């Protein structure tokens, strides 16, 4: 027993010493002459940022841009940012954020208002959806870097063979699907993301818009989930399953599952994000060169909408170096940096001019069409409690899609709960 105690005492001392040295070391590292600007992001993307960081530091020797690698799951990165703000002084100067985090972080008072730093004219060069996604209560909290939007992928070759034009309405989509399914040209008509997760809410925003409905009005806090359009939208999704146009499994699919369905050539239409293009057209893909994109279908007489996604930079309110942080934002979101990044990675730019940039179009021929999709962008409700509202919608939508309750019941309950959340019932 004696030796046990002396040993653990020794280890304890060792541990204390090493912890002390870690702390000392950290303080020593802090006192350098250059200003360090820190930002946290997914490890995967941090690697892709490396050339940008090098170039920035070459141009700005007085700033050390430090990218902190986080987990690759975006919700874990959000948690890390949230915790570091909740615990007091944030160790970061910039926030690299998903468009849906903006209202939450802004409402919590963690972000600096950037309105005064940027002119309307220079904002006008960005896609409007991306800019609006960075606004909350009239202030601007996020400058867009890369964009994202949902759209309809279709098999150009099969539609041309059968003599169809790409569908504009949900009815056309159903009719074409059923016809080509009857003729055994394809096994499935349309695949979409129906699993209970954020992707379901994102997909449903397009359906809602296409049926003339709305989710939450950010200004009046009015909830439209039990409106006619919303219920009709859910019925349409159910109809795709009931009629066999979509496989029953869509209610458990995320993006990747649906992409595989589409890519193995058995499916005519796919709802997905821009990343699919590269996979669909890569060497060895069964559908390479046979795919086209267009804005999402809508009910007759309604306009189509594309759910706006994407990432941008916000500034931490308590940062000690706002000017240096702003220089990072300016550089990263600049046309030159975006172009370099897009060419290297195939992500979607947030500046309109880059969609028709000759060099980019030479590399990605579909970007002009992509711009059309991006122009129809619709925001998920930019309200502070978006995460909760989305979870409520996902639960009830999923219940309706899996036939546990009717679309009306589901949407009424979802609307009720959302109103209670917003305090507007």
């Amino acid at each position, binding site marked *: *027993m004696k030796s046990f105690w002396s040993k653990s005492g020794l280890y304890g001392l060792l541990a204390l010493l090493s*912890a002390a040295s870690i702390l000392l070391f950290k303080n020593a590292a802090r006192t350098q002459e250059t200003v360090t600007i820190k930002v946290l992001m997914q*490890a995967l993307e941090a690697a892709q940022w490396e050339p940008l960081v090098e170039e920035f530091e070459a141009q700005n020797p007085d700033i050390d841009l430090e990218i902190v690698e986080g*987990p690759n799951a975006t919700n874990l990165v959000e948690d890390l940012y949230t915790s*570091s703000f909740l615990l*007091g002084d944030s160790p970061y100067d910039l926030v690299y954020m998903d468009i849906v985090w903006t209202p939450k972080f802004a409402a919590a008072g963690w972000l600096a208002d950037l309105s005064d730093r940027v002119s309307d004219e220079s904002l006008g060069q960005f896609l409007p959806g991306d800019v609006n996604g960075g606004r909350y209560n009239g202030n601007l909290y996020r400058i867009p870097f890369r964009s994202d939007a949902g759209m309809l992928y279709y098999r150009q070759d099969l539609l041309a063979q059968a003599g169809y034009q790409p569908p504009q309405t949900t009815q056309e989509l159903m009719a074409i699907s059923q016809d080509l399914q009857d003729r055994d040209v394809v096994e499935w008509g349309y695949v979409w993301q129906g699993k209970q997760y954020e992707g379901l809410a994102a997909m449903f925003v397009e359906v809602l818009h296409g049926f003339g409905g709305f989710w939450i009005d950010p200004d009046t806090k009015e909830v439209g989930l039990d409106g006619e359009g919303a219920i009709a939208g859910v019925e349409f999704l159910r109809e795709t399953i009931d009629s066999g146009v979509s496989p029953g499994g869509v209610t458990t699919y995320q993006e990747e599952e649906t992409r595989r369905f589409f890519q193995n050539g058995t499916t005519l239409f796919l709802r997905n994000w821009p990343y699919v293009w590269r996979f669909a057209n890569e060497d060895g893909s069964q559908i390479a060169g046979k795919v086209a994109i267009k804005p999402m279908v809508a009910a007759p007489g309604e306009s189509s909408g594309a759910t706006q996604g994407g990432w941008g930079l916000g500034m931490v309110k308590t940062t000690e170096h706002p000017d240096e942080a702003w220089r990072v934002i300016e550089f990263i979101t600049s046309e030159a940096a975006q172009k370099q990044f897009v060419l290297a990675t195939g992500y979607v730019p947030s500046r309109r001019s880059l969609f028709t940039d000759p060099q980019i179009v030479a590399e990605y021929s579909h970007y002009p069409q992509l711009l059309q999709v991006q122009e129809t962008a619709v925001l998920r409700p930019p309200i502070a409690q978006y995460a909760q509202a989305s979870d409520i919608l996902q639960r009830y939508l999923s219940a309706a899609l899996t036939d546990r309750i009717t679309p009306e019941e589901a949407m009424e309950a979802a609307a009720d709960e959302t109103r209670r959340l917003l305090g507007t019932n």
Partner: protein
Amino acid sequence: MTQNTINSKSQDDREEKFSIRNLIFPFSVALVVLFSLAPILWQFLTSVKTNDAIVALPNVYFPSPNQLTLSHYTELFERRPFFSYMLNSAFVSLTSTILCLTLGSPAAYALARLRIKGENVILAIVLVITLFPYILLFLGLLELVKATGLGNNFLALIIPYTAINLPLTILVMRSFFQQLPRDLEDSARVDGYNTVQMLQKIVLPMTLPALATTGILTFIFAWNEFIFALTFITLEDLKTIPVAAAQIGGSSVFEIPYGTIAAATVLGTFPLVVLVLFFQKKIVQGLTAGAVKG
């Protein structure tokens, strides 16, 4: 199984010849061992297999020599500060263990030996709070951590870990003190020691075994704690093992690093396996004293 094991003695007398019944017992022992070890073993085997062997179908159970690799372990140390995770866990657990024993033993002694008003109330409270799940405390502690600016500071873990282990320490140490012969202390008093001196010179040396028992339990609980460590520490360099390991799980979009996760599991559990191997008896003692006798 049950029938067979209770009164083994009388049964052995009655049935001397070989029968199925005699096989049931060894079989149950084997089952207990397999049940307890299988998940750990599988994790260990996964951690030393090459990635190809990990995703081979049907599964490779025991890797052949060319399927063996230590790369998952080296990756932990090269790509992540795994050594500092271990150090952090060790530091936090040890410190809170020491603190817990320092605060808990005197309290236990007072509750065992001295007459204090409200003793029963204190005991009842201590007993009941052993049952509180940590989730009930996390919201209030979050506010405290924020108010005191202790975020990303080990104290934000050490203080709660000390507190959540205090009830067990008090209960175990109290039952130990009650078993100590009173004569010793009485004669010490006669010799003119005051309470504190007596504790230091006479009681403390005798309590070392009991301190070890509770210390081991405290250490285990502190090493394993997850929810506070997940919330109060956000800096990579300050994370403890359970949180760091759990976050490797969600760390890759396209490919989940099964081998690395397995290696992290093995390394994160290793110190505890050693503890259990050496101190099995003490752990059992401590747990039964804490739960049953309290």
